[in-house]
């Protein structure tokens, strides 16, 4: 989106009344919510008080161990104002990665620009701004009822207080939709703060696939993004969720996600972290019914001074569930990653199978990877394991490629693709897989390539 209109930048000087850190900004945000029901307004007010009351994270906090906490200030960010038409147009132009999809929504600064209606009867595919009034009862039952609580409670509260839009997907019992629903979230303008919210409810036996794309209109705007995605998989439901985080490298981002899996449900999530100067990803998985199965994948390719800070919790609350987590990071330059994961098995959650793996590939001499893989097991009939490795590329593999006349940079890139294969091969959607490969490839070139790596 290099050709985005510069007008946005000029027009939106940070207006004090819109600052996200001020109560004026909060009040102003509330006024803009025309359709919000009373309960939601109350929730927002109480979450705003919560936000003000909670302290900023410090390096001493266990949940922020090894992470940078010096750059989390919310000063200078404000809620977005209306976008000029030129900007809307360019956002729409850059929001069509998929040829075939079941539904699509395009948001720019949390404002809905485009939506394709769902054709399936009983299925709800609606922007949250509408769902607030049209599906209030259903929304109320699920909205923010389960939060990650893995250290970013202050930002969760901020999200609840300031969010205004996002996608709401409800799939009725037994319905199977194989094509993906796709939501594009674009941040435009200097200092803009966005709060994209995703809520997926798959009723019993339903099957659904959702993709969130997070991107910035320009490379050089300093933005704040604080998104939440909550997945509720009912009994026997199958949910597949992918989040592609490609905010620009000036963005401070939070993605605070949850998965709630009921009896015999199957959930697979993939988080791809490409952008942000500092990205904090939280993923709280709760297995609530026997037979639940959750696979959780993540990959990140930080460059420059990027930090990707990942905190996860796999909470087994029912017997005979399985969860598997695989986080892979390939680090270049001075980048940093933190992976802190915990498997928690409750006393009654016998016959649990839980796995957690973190693999870090250090591609430069000043990159830094930290792993904190944790287990807390209170049941005894379990199979649990975790593994963490941090290392460099295999010299022999590199040598082999070099001896075939492949440049070092290219050889590195190929081996990194191999390293990520374990995750990218999980993507059933071919279009997404191709895009992903080109996005990863981009992080190996100063100038983004126009074609994917084989081109």
């Amino acid at each position: 989106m290099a050709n985005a209109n510069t007008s946005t930048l000029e027009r939106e000087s940070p207006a004090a009344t819109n600052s996200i850190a001020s109560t004026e900004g909060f009040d102003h945000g509330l006024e803009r919510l025309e359709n919000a029901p009373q309960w939601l307004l109350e929730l927002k007010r109480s979450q705003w008080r919560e936000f003000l009351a909670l302290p900023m994270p410090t390096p001493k906090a266990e949940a922020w161990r090894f992470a940078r906490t010096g750059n989390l200030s919310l000063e200078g960010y404000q809620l977005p104002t209306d976008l000029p038409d030129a900007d809307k147009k360019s956002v729409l132009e850059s929001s069509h990665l998929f040829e075939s999809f079941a539904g699509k929504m395009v948001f720019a600064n949390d404002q809905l620009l485009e939506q394709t209606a769902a054709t399936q009867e009983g299925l709800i595919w609606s922007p949250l701004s509408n769902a607030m009034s049209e599906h209030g009862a259903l929304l109320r039952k699920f909205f923010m009822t389960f939060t990650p609580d893995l250290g970013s409670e202050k930002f969760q509260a901020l999200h609840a207080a300031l969010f205004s839009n996002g996608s709401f997907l409800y799939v009725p019992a037994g319905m199977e939709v194989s094509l993906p629903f796709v939501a594009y979230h674009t941040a435009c303008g200097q200092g803009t703060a966005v709060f994209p919210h995703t809520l997926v409810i798959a009723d019993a036996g339903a099957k659904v696939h959702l993709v969130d794309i997070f991107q910035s209109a320009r490379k050089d705007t300093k933005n704040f993004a604080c998104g939440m995605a909550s997945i509720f998989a009912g009994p026997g439901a199958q949910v597949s969720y992918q989040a592609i985080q490609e905010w620009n490298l000036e963005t401070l981002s939070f993605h605070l996600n949850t998965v709630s899996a009921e009896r015999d449900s199957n959930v697979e999530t993939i988080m791809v972290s490409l952008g942000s100067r500092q990205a904090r990803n939280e993923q709280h998985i709760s297995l609530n019914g026997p037979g639940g199965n959750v696979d959780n994948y993540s990959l990140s390719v930080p460059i420059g001074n990027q930090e990707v800070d990942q905190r996860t919790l796999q909470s087994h609350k029912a017997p005979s569930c399985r969860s598997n987590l695989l986080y892979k990071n390939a680090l270049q330059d001075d980048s940093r990653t933190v992976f802190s994961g915990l498997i928690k098995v409750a006393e009654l959650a016998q016959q649990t199978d839980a796995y957690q793996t973190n693999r870090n590939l250090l591609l430069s001499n000043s990159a830094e990877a930290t792993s904190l893989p944790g287990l807390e097991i209170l049941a005894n009939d379990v199979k649990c394991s975790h593994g963490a490795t941090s290392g460099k590329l295999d010299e022999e593999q590199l040598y082999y490629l070099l001896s075939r006349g492949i440049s070092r940079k290219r050889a590195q890139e190929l081996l990194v693709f191999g390293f990520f294969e374990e995750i990218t091969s999980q993507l059933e959607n071919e279009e997404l897989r191709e895009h992903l490969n080109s996005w990863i490839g981009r992080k190996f070139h100063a100038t983004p390539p126009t074609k994917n790596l084989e081109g």
Partner: protein
Amino acid sequence: MPATIEKETSSESIAIDRDIGNFKYKEDYSYDAGTGLSEKTVEYISNVKNEEEWVRDFRLKALKIFESKPTPTHWASKDLENIDYSKIRYYLSKGQQPSRTWDEVPDDVKETFERLGIPEQERKFLAGVEAQFDSEAAYSNMKTKLAEEGVIFVGSTEGLKEHPEIFRKFFGKVIPTGDNKFSALNSAVFSGGSFIYVPPGVHVKQPLQAYFRINAENFGQFERTLIIADEGSEVTYMEGCTAPKFETTTLHSAVVELVAMKGARIQYITVQNWSENVFNLVTKRGMAMEDATIKWIDCNIGSRLTMKYPGVILKGRGARGEVLSIALANDGQHQDTGAKMIHAANDTTSNIIAKSISVGTGRSSYRGLVQMPKHLKNCKNNTECDALLINTNSRTDTYPAINVRGDGNSVQHEASVSKVSAEQIFYMQQRGLSEAQAMSLAVNGFVNDLIREFPMEYSVELKRLIDLQMEGSVG
């Protein structure tokens, strides 16, 4: 060998039975610093020991640090809040000088040792014994041969007083006073422990051993150990503890510092079997210079709460650090153990193998830290943590932290949690073993490859200790 030792052999075989530690004698202490902790307590200890000015200042400074540091309950067990520092006695002593001959040792002390089987063990393989009765070394006997080779094996008080030129250089350097709240506490009130110096090239063939005992209610034991192995030397040190059972909690907070100079090897073996009311909060760390090896073999079976993470600072090129750890947590116990490996030079390697068994409501935790900064090349770490859960209400946790910078190093960490499989038990029962026997066999199989690393006498003792712990856990 003193003649008295022969006489008592009839009384006991090797002291393995836990209950043997379950007795106590009339408390009769010549020096007693009273309960509670203040500058007065610290000065009292320093006066009794007739210490030099710098040691006294070191203690007083440490007390201030101890008081200023919060209890680390933001990550550690809340049980730490149950320690009432004002009810603990910080110093007790018979007032006797460390004695070299058996005849000089008071009779009731001898009796304690005899029941523990120390003379038995000494006759078998010990080069020297430094048995600690409460705070002061009560008996110190070194083989003439070792003394001739220049090996110094003394108590901490004696070490600081008589060999300051050797020990002062590293005293408090591997573990600074302010490292944590409990190392500060130890630095303020330490007494007892062993100071060992092994001259260059000397291989101490037989393990040096010390037994520690706590024998007064509410009496914390704060021993301080410093072992320096000079260039190319080798030494193995063994530390085993048994303690009488008491109604109220006692505190044990040791500091152990090891220094392995170029090419030296130190092996430090601990079998911790404090009674189940003891808080065992220990800081252990070694510094390994060029091509040196430090190996911690750590076995925790007793205590109410143990927090102990033996570490190695790999300071010289080619240094190696190893931690082998076995923890067994029974009802009401929390074994919070682990390891730290701080890589600070190229080509350094470290290995951590930790196995834990949780029985009944027991909880075992692994907590670890592996650090490799960016300027290093070719450093390797391997960590394996395996946990075995016996009963449905047993608990285990793993909290490692691995921090690696740069593309020159590699780290791998693996942990698994499992239970003894029903099939295994069934198979063994079908061959005529009782369920308890089968369970015991399976558990011994789980720790066997680690136990083999222990010296033979210890591995026998350990297996029997584990058997005893497992009694009644099945069915």
